[in-house]
């Protein structure tokens, strides 16, 4: 071997293999002991040496001639930063017609007053949205149950369409609804503006109904999904699940439910422990149970794919896209710099702007740490104000203790809001961080599948991430 120098990379040991990972997320699976050999310049496997050089792990040149390719690829990976905030969440109301047992949004009775956004605040919020330089703007309507506020939705969209005549952005609309009462008027509005419907389905009726606190919830949701599909088309309706404690015992049944409802994917979402740090011991146990639930479910989904059915797990797909492709990913929970403010922003019913969906949930328990300003304030004062500045110091995992030296940080992200909420400190402490534990376990699990069953799972994974 020639003389060479190291380029930045790290490694993780999985199933008696060393997986070498560079700053782009490219990885090489090598036998145990390889890193030691690289360091001591005693690599005897010529093929491995060629792979290390061609993939920018080591270089024979002090100033590598093609390092700009590496730089260009890094720019592509961080492409989610180019456009700034593209996801704009509008929390229209806390009013809701369900009583989900794990509600994180502090929903109120359907008949409640004083918990919906005013038309004036909607106008101001839409105006603020257009200050974002992003060529793609997504307006996502949330609640409570936003379909209870159809006039507000219509007003928001009409205001946006009017401003957009001049601004020429690509507008996308999403309605997050439980589908319980999708009126004909609502669906007509969806049809008119190509609004995507994102609903909640937790699994079979015995799980969904218990979670959602109503006997007829499952039936109503399925009926709503079918009604929406009939009017808008299947591709306009997607569903999300939340893994309650009850759900933890039914990974396969939940997947089966999604397959039989005609969905081609599922997002296995853990409960977010907002404002519940006090019961930390329970959350630790939940986290560990969720990890085994997740693995069982993904294993099962792989089996389904082997029978020729395309069906993917969305969270794994996001991580695999980071591992297997040169492309960027736009998922706000796994970004560094963090997705909060950079990619997502929330206009709340109370007339204030928050850093993320979770930030406005904290506000419901009187924690206003991530309130950025009023919707009527100046864009600069909100997006670059004192809260944003404080967060900016700790929202890149490359610069966080416990993350910066982590070999798999490139697949993960920074989450100041979560750490503030669960550890009382937005910097966070990784050794006891549950989000760290969960992401590590999932990423290592995906690696172990690739190491152990690569020929079998990689063709499936490639289909998931395209």
């Amino acid at each position, binding site marked *: 071997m020639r003389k060479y120098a190291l380029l930045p990379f790290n490694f993780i040991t999985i199933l008696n293999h060393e997986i070498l990972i560079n700053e*782009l997320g490219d990885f090489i699976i090598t036998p145990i002991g390889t890193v030691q050999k690289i360091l001591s310049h005693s690599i005897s496997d010529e*093929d491995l040496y060629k*792979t290390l050089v*061609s*993939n920018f792990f080591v270089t024979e040149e002090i100033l590598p001639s*093609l390092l*700009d390719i590496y730089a260009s*690829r890094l720019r592509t990976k961080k492409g989610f930063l180019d456009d700034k905030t593209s996801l704009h969440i509008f929390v229209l109301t806390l009013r809701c017609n369900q009583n989900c047992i794990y509600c994180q949004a502090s929903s109120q009775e359907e008949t409640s007053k004083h918990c919906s956004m005013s038309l004036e605040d909607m106008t101001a919020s839409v105006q603020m949205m257009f200050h974002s330089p992003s060529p793609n703007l997504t307006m996502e309507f949330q609640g409570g149950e936003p379909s209870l506020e159809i006039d507000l939705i219509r007003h928001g969209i009409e205001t946006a369409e009017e401003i957009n005549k001049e601004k020429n952005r690509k507008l996308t609309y999403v309605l997050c609804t439980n589908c319980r009462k999708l009126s004909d008027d609502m669906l007509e509005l969806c049809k008119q503006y190509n609004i995507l419907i994102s609903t909640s389905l937790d699994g079979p009726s015995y799980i969904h109904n218990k979670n959602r606190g109503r006997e007829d919830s499952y039936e109503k949701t399925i009926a709503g999904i079918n009604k929406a599909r009939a009017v808008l088309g299947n591709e306009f309706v997607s569903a999300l699940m939340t893994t309650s404690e009850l759900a933890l015992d039914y990974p396969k049944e939940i997947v089966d439910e999604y397959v039989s409802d005609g969905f081609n994917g599922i997002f296995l979402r853990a409960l977010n422990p907002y404002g519940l740090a006090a019961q930390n011991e329970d959350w630790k146990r939940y986290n560990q149970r969720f990890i085994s639930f997740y693995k069982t479910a993904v294993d099962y989904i792989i089996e389904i794919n082997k029978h020729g059915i395309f069906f993917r797990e969305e969270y794994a797909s996001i991580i695999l896209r980071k591992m297997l492709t*040169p492309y960027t990913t736009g998922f706000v929970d796994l970004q560094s710099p963090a997705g909060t403010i950079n990619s997502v922003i929330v206009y709340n019913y109370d007339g204030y702007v928050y850093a993320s969906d979770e930030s406005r949930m904290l506000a419901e328990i009187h924690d206003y740490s991530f309130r950025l300003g009023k919707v009527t304030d100046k864009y600069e004062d909100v997006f670059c104000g004192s809260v944003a500045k404080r967060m900016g110091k700790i929202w890149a995992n490359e610069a966080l203790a416990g993350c910066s030296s982590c070999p798999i940080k490139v697949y993960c992200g920074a989450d100041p809001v979560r750490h503030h909420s669960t550890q009382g400190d937005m910097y966070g402490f990784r050794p006891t961080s549950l989000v760290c534990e969960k992401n590590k376990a999932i990423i290592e699990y995906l690696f172990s599948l690739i190491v152990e069953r690569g020929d079998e799972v990689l063709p499936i994974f490639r289909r998931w991430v395209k």
Partner: protein
Amino acid sequence: MKERFEIDSNSNVLFVTSQCNNHCIMCCQPPQKDDDFNFCFNQNIKLIKSAPKETKVVCITGGEPTLAGDSFIELVSLVRKELPLTDIHVLSNGRAFSDNEFVHKLKVAGEDKVFIGVPLHSDFFRDHDIISGAKGAFNETMLGIYNLANEGILIELRIVINKLNYYRLPQLAKYIFKNLYFVSWVAFMGMEDTGWASKNAETIWVEPIDYASQLCRAVKELDDWDIPVAIYNIPLCLLPTEYHRFATRSISDWKTRYLDICNDCSVRFECCGLFGTSMRNYQGLKAI
């Protein structure tokens, strides 16, 4: 070479020079040292002016056509002016495109109907340099490909399979997807046993039956990622059936040859056949 262009032919060739700054060990038309730029240029002007306006594609090749420098650009510009509907396919080792001003001139001259076929022999720079017979070729070619992409010029990667690179074809495919995912398509090409390929046969000749498994793994990886991929110059009888869809009738019409056994073959008319110019036939040919 043709005296006149034909509308549907895949071999309307503008030959720019027989000189080259690479010395590829499998070169089928070994470079010459003669100063032939002016002679070729004048011939090419005649060909362009007499060509039917409906000509689908002209191929600018050599030697290394970019060695002609500004008169290469002038040639592209003339084709564009005289034959506005015709695609311009340039075959180049890509090294000259490491100069981004030159690439910009090409873009201005050729507008949006130029595509460049660039050979990439390996993901490992030294293997590429050895195969192309020029130190530093890999770095210049890679930079050239990036400059071409930056100008929005379409790129075809051409990989001539030989004994020095076949065992890393899967790694090369991965490298292409990771680093050159913007290319328009990738062609894996069987070798023509003529010119230096014959002379260096001992070092470089390898039979398709010996590299089919690496080739198929590489093709599958790129196809899985939706990067268009093709197999050139390898008869269908040497490829697994599920890879037939990647094989094209790639050999220039005037060079194509079939054997007697091909007459009984059910896929003869979809098959590229063999090089009429090749000194030997591949092993394992059969009617299927």
